[in-house]
């Protein structure tokens, strides 16, 4: 009898697989995933893979009234450690006897993870389906599939912890169903007692911090720059002028999103004597395209196929006065 019940359960499971989700449902779920990653306390080890390269990292993450605190320590290769407190990050490179404190750009502060309008476009661009259940790192997870509706984006597969909605694993998949980039917890403990001592840097520091307050970006502007031939499903979510280290002039930064990934366009004046550049590069799921436009250098970066960054880069035009 027991095995009959088990069989029925199995077939039910199979029936649940690839059930399309209503737009509203999937949007809610993605919201919860973003929330969980920042609002939960957890500690564990995850692997990050892109192309043929895999590496493991230990993570401690505490969320309390004062915000997010975290420590990441690399387990492969040279030891490195990152301590996060709110929007401040400290990088430790003990082998190099150095450390750097960096504050994230102000542009990000208060920027909601997923804007409602971004999420609304999601269902226009992806078929969202439930993909069944799987046990991962000791936890039960629901699988969420985001199948792209065209060639301008990759597919996504998300493993979401059943009780807390913490993302336990995520993969980006090409149109040939090849995994381009993925991360996965190999062990994790969600919630429970947390020893704050685990948030302290363990690598010996031999030098005081080298401060690197990145100049605040975030001057929201109407730059006059536009993307004429925007790939379907992408909408502009940010436009600003910001300063970067080593550049004496401001750079225009436009951001477009299809609800799940973003593409950034950076536009800067060509410096006297500088050679205009043109080319494509890829790292894992991130494609990059540089292209000159008139007296400006355009750089496009996004977690999309090459065609997307290329089409955007090729149609950047100035329409201001």
């Amino acid at each position: 009898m027991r095995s009959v019940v088990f069989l029925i359960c199995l077939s039910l499971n199979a029936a649940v697989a690839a059930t399309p989700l209503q737009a509203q449902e999937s949007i809610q779920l993605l919201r919860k995933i973003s929330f969980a990653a920042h609002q939960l306390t957890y500690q564990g080890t995850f692997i990050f893979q892109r192309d043929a390269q895999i590496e493991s990292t230990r993570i401690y993450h505490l969320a309390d009234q004062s915000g997010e605190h975290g420590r990441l320590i690399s387990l492969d290769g040279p030891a490195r450690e990152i301590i996060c407190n709110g929007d401040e990050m400290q990088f430790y490179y003990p082998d190099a006897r150095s450390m750097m404190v960096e504050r994230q750009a102000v542009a990000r502060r208060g920027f909601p993870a997923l804007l409602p309008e971004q999420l609304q476009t999601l269902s226009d661009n992806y078929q969202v389906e439930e993909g069944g259940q799987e046990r991962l790192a000791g936890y039960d997870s629901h699988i969420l599939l985001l199948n792209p509706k065209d060639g301008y984006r990759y597919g996504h597969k998300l493993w979401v912890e059943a009780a807390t909605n913490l993302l336990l694993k995520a993969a980006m998949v090409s149109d040939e169903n090849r995994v381009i980039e993925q991360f996965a917890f190999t062990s994790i403990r969600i919630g429970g007692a947390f020893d704050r001592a685990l948030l302290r840097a363990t690598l010996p520091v031999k030098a005081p911090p080298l401060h690197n307050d990145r100049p605040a970006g975030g001057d929201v502007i109407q730059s006059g720059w536009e993307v004429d031939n925007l790939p379907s499903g992408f909408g502009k979510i940010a436009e600003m002028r910001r300063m970067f280290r080593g550049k004496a002039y401001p750079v225009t930064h436009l951001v477009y999103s299809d609800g799940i990934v973003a593409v950034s366009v950076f536009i800067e004046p060509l410096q006297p004597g500088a050679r205009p550049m043109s080319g494509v590069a890829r790292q894992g799921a991130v494609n990059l395209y540089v292209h000159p436009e008139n007296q400006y250098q355009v750089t496009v970066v996004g977690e999309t196929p090459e065609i997307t960054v290329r089409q955007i880069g090729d149609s950047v035009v100035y329409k201001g006065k």
Partner: protein
Amino acid sequence: MREEISMLVDAELDGEDVARLVSRMKDQETQDWLLYHLIGEAVRDPEGFRADLDVDCRAVIVAEPTVLAPSRLHKARLYALSAAASVAAVFLVGWVALQGPADSPVPKQVAQAVHLDVIKSRLNDYLLAHQEFSPRSEMMPSNIRTVSDTYQESGR
């Protein structure tokens, strides 16, 4: 004090001495420390010396040639400088398939060499700036990509 800071930069102090010195350092001293690092960077790689230096720093570099005495330039320190200078960098070591456009008049191999060099140096900050706005990054536990990319940097 300056001498001690200089020793610190050269990694000639250890354990307790470092702790004592750090606790005594105030703003001016921190500035000095930063300055020595920048000087080291300039010595190591004059071509790539960052353009955003304070005028004050430049003045001191010119005025204090003794700081640049070769005996001070420990190998370990130079390595430290190169790592610190580009921390937070999403470095492009792992990038593949950089190529010129199909209609490029420049032979592909030449184009590749030129681009890789120049592009590397300018894109680190762009990649980080981009990531701040990626909805997908927001769903993942903090800074996955960042820690991974610092690996690329320090592992090079």
